[in-house]
């Protein structure tokens, strides 16, 4: 395993990328750089620690957690599409308690903020998960995955119904002092309006976009390819949609926006930052290239050097859309 700073190749690049100021702040969290991992694409961190010095990341957002462990959907769970992936993993996870006991000790050794992504199928489950994750050392922020149904309220999706979203964010807000990020679904008519709902309910930041709902059909068998029939689309295919939504959201809210959706390289990340995102998250790219996050961090540093900019914050929201 590669530990902090042992690899000389990484060391020299660190010096290079340390000269322009890459650090950003989100809801009181100081990040070394704006590059985070997207929940569900980076496991619990240890899966990628063979490839990536986790100390170099802006933040690690772990796989979504629920109070009760979930075994996830039947297979097939994943299918490649044109420049993308459609997945229906079904939120498989080991549960909050096992995460705290078995995964968090490993993560505590790194000097990188750990953001616990979590979800529930009722407001009560969201609150319980948030409480338990807030009372342990080593969790520095929370990200709510609200793109799941509220089983108590007629299965409507928290993320697509303003009233349900407001209710769950308000309830979680009352029960945690950690920075609270609400992850927004793009499967709505007006994502900026939904971001406003999250802001008004007490969110410290919003992250977007979660996956776009999609479907792939096996034409020979006349059946959906995924066992779940529909899934969430991610990867380069969704990036223009994500950039547009981030831009619209940044104009609508005062809280920081974390941009994600198909970021494969530093140029992609810069589009989100220029659109106004304070940080970005890298998802599908980790699957394609385990070193994607590090290469993006280095690419951001190089871009600032080339442009003669000393602080990444000068890039954020620098879009000229007139």
């Amino acid at each position, binding site marked *: 395993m590669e530990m902090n700073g042992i690899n000389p190749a990484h060391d020299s690049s660190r010096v290079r990328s340390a000269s322009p100021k890459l650090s950003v702040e989100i809801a009181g969290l100081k990040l070394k750089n704006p590059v985070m991992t997207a929940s*569900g*694409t*980076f*496991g619990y961190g240890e*899966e*990628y620690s*063979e*490839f990536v010095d986790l100390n170099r990341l802006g933040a690690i957002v772990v*796989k979504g957690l629920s109070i009760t462990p979930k*075994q*996830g959907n*039947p*297979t*097939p*769970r*994943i*299918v*490649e599409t*044109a*420049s*993308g*992936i459609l*997945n229906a*993993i079904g939120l*498989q996870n080991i549960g909050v308690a096992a995460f705290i006991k078995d995964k968090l000790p490993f993560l505590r050794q790194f000097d990188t903020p750990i953001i616990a992504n979590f979800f529930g199928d009722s407001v009560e489950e969201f609150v319980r998960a948030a409480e338990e994750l807030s009372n342990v050392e080593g969790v520095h922020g929370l990200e709510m995955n609200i793109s799941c149904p509220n089983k108590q309220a007629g299965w409507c999706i928290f993320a697509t119904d303003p009233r349900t979203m407001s209710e769950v964010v308000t309830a979680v807000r009352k029960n945690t002092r950690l920075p609270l990020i609400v992850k927004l679904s793009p499967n709505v008519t007006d994502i900026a309006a939904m971001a406003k709902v999250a802001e008004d309910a007490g969110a410290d930041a919003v992250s977007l976009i979660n996956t776009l709902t999609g479907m792939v059909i096996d034409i020979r068998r006349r059946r959906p390819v995924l066992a779940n029939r529909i899934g969430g689309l991610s*990867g*380069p295919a969704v990036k223009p949609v994500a950039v547009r939504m981030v831009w619209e959201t940044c104009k609508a809210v005062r809280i920081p926006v974390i941009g994600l959706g198909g970021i*494969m390289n530093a140029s992609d990340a810069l589009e989100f930052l220029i659109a106004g995102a304070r940080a970005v998250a890298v998802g*599908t790219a*980790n*699957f*394609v*290239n*385990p070193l994607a996050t590090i290469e993006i961090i280095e690419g951001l540093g190089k871009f600032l050097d080339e442009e003669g900019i000393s602080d990444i914050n000068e890039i954020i929201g620098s879009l000229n859309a007139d």
Partner: protein
Amino acid sequence: MLQTARTYDPLLKRPFSLFRYQDGVLQFLYRIRGKGTECLSEIKAGDVIQLLGPLGNAYPSPEGDFIVVSGGIGIASLFMLLEKYKQKANFFCGARNCDELLMLDEAKTLAKDVCITTDDGTACIKGLITEPFKDFIESACFVKNPLPIYSCGPIPMLIELASIVAGRGLTCYASLEEVMACGVGACLGCVTKTTAGYKRVCKEGPVFRIEDIIWK
């Protein structure tokens, strides 16, 4: 996991088992089945490709004689066993037709005994490889001296194999093939259902005890 170039379409690397390692050269054996393998078939000597690996587990080393059951391209993951443990294996090899019987001449010199079937009868015995395999493990000499079984092949073959070995107290390993995204255990896309819940084919596998797998 292999990818010929960093392209967006195909986007993901494709999983392959190591087929052979000879004179410092890693070899992969594959059938062209989709976009990924098609790209692979188009590369030329000297081209640079992306490789992530080795990943996951491997067949446990056999201690004495053993049985190998291969279906179609499944030979790709089993061939090194034959090569490393010469004259130790009873090799059962099935394919759809004579054209898909791969590495057979080499395998014949490496294995102790070889039994071949083709679905269409274009070579050797017509039928499925699981039929002569079943006769073999029911023979008096095998029952007296049971051997571990190593298998890789299409799912229907593995299901049949699982039902043949069930309840006989045999050690039988199956290497599974699954669609994968990351290959490192993060995406949870390649899981297979086992008696102990979903297991990641890329990480806890691809080799499983066949009795642990719950087939769809």
